[in-house]
């Protein structure tokens, strides 16, 4: 029963932003379902194939902001063929036809074409914000349409996309009347940038808070940009060819000093160490620092800079910082919440004594009481270290540890790392995301199933002994949403044990495991509400017509996900949907 008029309830719902909460609200009653869906402005769709645009529009007629994710996570690591899918065009097309008042579109791992961007730019008069993360398929021509046609554009944020750069004049396409920009990030563009156009654009955008340029923007241009945008909060620096001369350096430092609002710094993709020192005047204000692309800056220079960044909450860095560097971070950055340490040597070419080890991880856990998210690439680990980390930091929400060599045991005891990860899941009661690595047996999964009650996403590689491992996880982790497994000996028994479990999950990925074609077919038969996709780049798509013997053939890559709209029609030949 509603004791308030609908408008009042709707007003109350306005205060609830989280889509998870809104989903819960809509389950309370028919009336609440209707009020909620008619008033919802922001929709998050974690798998673009779980639903189609027509049903989305039907349910949420007031849609203003849409977030869509396409390819599975392992696509980031080249495990998914390029043509797999995740096309945004049908979505933009449907939204345009239905005259939805779209204002914001955020895409991750989707295929975007110039035509899509052109259509987007012409179809939504109030369009304000475009965020593309790890997308591909478009060129700077598409960006030109957005710049030219989206009169009210406030945010254009391009993160780590593969964009074909036609070295055109897309920056020139922002009309002179466009003054509303608050955020512009084109750091992933590889080509030249029209510096004059960029400077004019920045100069006429008084609300610009976030600016991230690409490598083509040299030092003196950066100085001019910062001089006309002292209000910047978030800056992504381009590149510097060589050491600046004294005069340029002084000018840069003067410009930086004026940016008293600057809190976040990134970029530095080709930077002589001296250039980092130009930012000393404001480094005490920084809350976020991303130097993970700064391969040219040696560890000692990094450390010298970071030791003044006392307010840092987020740090992304390369392992060239070393354990000693991390000890400095631990003693300086008491506000640190998120740390990511990336490998600088990706092909194990150098015997890198400067990489990080368990020592750095323990130091960070001891020194940073607010740490809740970590991504750590290292060459070695020990159970003792992980147990200590768990004791020091029971507040982890995200814990991702990647030991570079698969199956590597505890380097001091030669044992598996089951106990170490076990300690992590037992201590960190709020853990939502976990990536495990190193030598691991079924036991670690027993621990995960037993203790990781809030776990939503688990990434497994080269781990486990038998189906029991996967079963522990599927049976134990009630909140599991995304499970991705590669190169582990889990097979049909684990896959088929509890088909209904997949109703509660967004998706399951298994590659180079022991599941067979027969097992997958059986699953598909028992769960028509699942799309069971087999990805096989070597053969053509005649998997369905193979005879009985081939049922025992192992499946190279399996991706399954719940959906309300059945098998998708845009799958390429290398994908078979059972």
């Amino acid at each position: 029963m509603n004791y308030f008029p609908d408008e009042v309830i709707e007003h109350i719902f306005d205060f609830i932003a989280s889509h998870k909460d809104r989903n819960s609200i809509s389950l309370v009653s028919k009336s609440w379902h209707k009020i909620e869906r008619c008033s919802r402005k922001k929709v998050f769709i974690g798998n673009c194939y779980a639903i189609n645009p027509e049903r989305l529009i039907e349910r949420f007629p007031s849609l203003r902001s849409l977030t869509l994710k396409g390819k599975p996570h392992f696509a980031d690591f080249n495990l998914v063929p390029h043509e797999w899918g995740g096309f945004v065009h049908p979505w933009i097309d449907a939204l345009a036809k239905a005259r939805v008042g779209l204002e914001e579109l955020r895409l991750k791992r989707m295929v975007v074409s110039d035509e899509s961007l052109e259509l987007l730019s012409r179809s939504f008069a109030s369009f304000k914000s475009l965020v593309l993360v790890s997308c591909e398929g478009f060129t700077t021509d598409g960006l030109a349409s957005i710049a030219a046609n989206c009169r009210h554009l406030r945010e254009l944020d391009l993160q780590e996309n593969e964009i074909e750069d036609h070295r055109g004049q897309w920056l020139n396409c922002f009309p002179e009347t466009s003054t509303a920009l608050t955020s512009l990030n084109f750091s992933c563009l590889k080509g030249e940038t029209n510096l004059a156009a960029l400077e004019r654009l920045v100069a006429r955008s008084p609300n610009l808070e976030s600016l991230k340029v690409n490598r083509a923007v040299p030092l003196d241009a950066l100085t001019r940009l910062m001089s006309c945008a002292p209000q910047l909060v978030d800056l992504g620096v381009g590149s510097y060819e060589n050491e600046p001369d004294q005069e340029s350096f002084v000018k840069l430092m003067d410009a930086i000093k004026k940016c008293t609002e600057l809190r976040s710094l990134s970029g530095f993709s080709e930077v002589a160490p001296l250039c980092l020192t130009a930012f000393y005047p404001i480094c005490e204000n920084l809350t976020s620092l991303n130097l993970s692309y700064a391969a040219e800056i040696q560890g000692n220079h990094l450390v010298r800079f970071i030791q003044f960044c006392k307010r840092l909450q987020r740090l992304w860095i390369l392992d060239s910082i070393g354990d000693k560097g991390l000890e400095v971070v631990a003693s300086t950055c008491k506000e640190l919440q998120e740390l990511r340490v990336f490998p600088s040597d990706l092909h194990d070419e150098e015997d890198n004594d400067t990489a990080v080890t368990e020592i750095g991880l323990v130091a960070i856990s001891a020194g940073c009481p607010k740490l809740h998210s970590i991504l750590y690439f290292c060459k070695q680990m020990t159970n003792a270290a992980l147990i200590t980390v768990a004791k020091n930091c029971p507040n982890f929400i995200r814990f991702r540890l990647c030991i570079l060599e698969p199956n590597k045991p505890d380097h001091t005891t030669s044992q598996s790392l089951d106990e170490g990860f076990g300690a992590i899941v037992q201590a960190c009661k709020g853990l939502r995301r976990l990536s495990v690595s190193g030598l691991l047996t079924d036991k670690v999964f027993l621990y995960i199933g037993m203790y990781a009650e809030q776990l939503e996403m688990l990434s497994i590689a080269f781990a486990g002994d038998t189906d029991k491992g996967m079963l522990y996880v599927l049976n134990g982790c009630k909140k599991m949403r995304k499970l991705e497994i590669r190169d582990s000996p889990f097979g049909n028994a684990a896959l088929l044990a509890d088909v209904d479990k997949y109703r509660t999950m967004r998706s399951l990925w298994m590659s180079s495991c022991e599941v067979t074609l027969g097992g997958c077919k059986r699953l598909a038969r028992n769960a028509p509400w699942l799309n069971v996709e087999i990805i096989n780049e070597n053969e053509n798509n005649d998997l369905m017509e193979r005879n009985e013997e081939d049922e025992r053939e192992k499946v190279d890559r399996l991706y399954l996900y719940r959906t309300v709209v059945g098998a998708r029609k845009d799958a390429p030949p290398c994908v078979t949907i059972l």
Partner: protein
Amino acid sequence: MENVGVCDEFVNLKATELRLGLPGTEDGCEEEKQKVSCIKSNKRALPEPEKNNESKTETASPPKAQIVGWPPVRSYRKNNIQTKKNESEGQGMYVKVSMDGAPYLRKIDLTVYKQYPELMKSLENMFKFSVGEYFEREGYKGSEFVPTYEDKDGDWMLVGDVPWEMFVSSCKRLRIMKGSEVKGLGCGV
């Protein structure tokens, strides 16, 4: 790693072994253990090329086959770090050359030279000066001009001290210093 594990098991047995030899002269396991601890203590921010050789015997494994999608680093990130390495090792290694007092800089390709004398000759021709003779201890004698270069660490070094290949791979730019500044580098003038 497995070697260390095996050693751990056998260390106690070894202690009871009757051996001829002074205490502390054990080879095999002890050495490896020491190497392991060496590696740990050498993990500083600055790379130490000499120590690399020591650790090679401990951590080196047979050349690893490239596993698809491993380590789990986004392709975008992999490509961007790679590009940097390739750019510096690609066609030609062009570095800027400045000369004190000259109105503008020049650029030369270090890879076209095979040794220092060739490079010096080319620089001398380009800027119409003479560089004097190089001595290991005293540096350059007989000229007020001294060739210097900036290395990867951002330090200014005297050209000629390190082997040619090392110079080419670490040289970021060249500067021909002149006059009073030059004294500190031991020009012997």
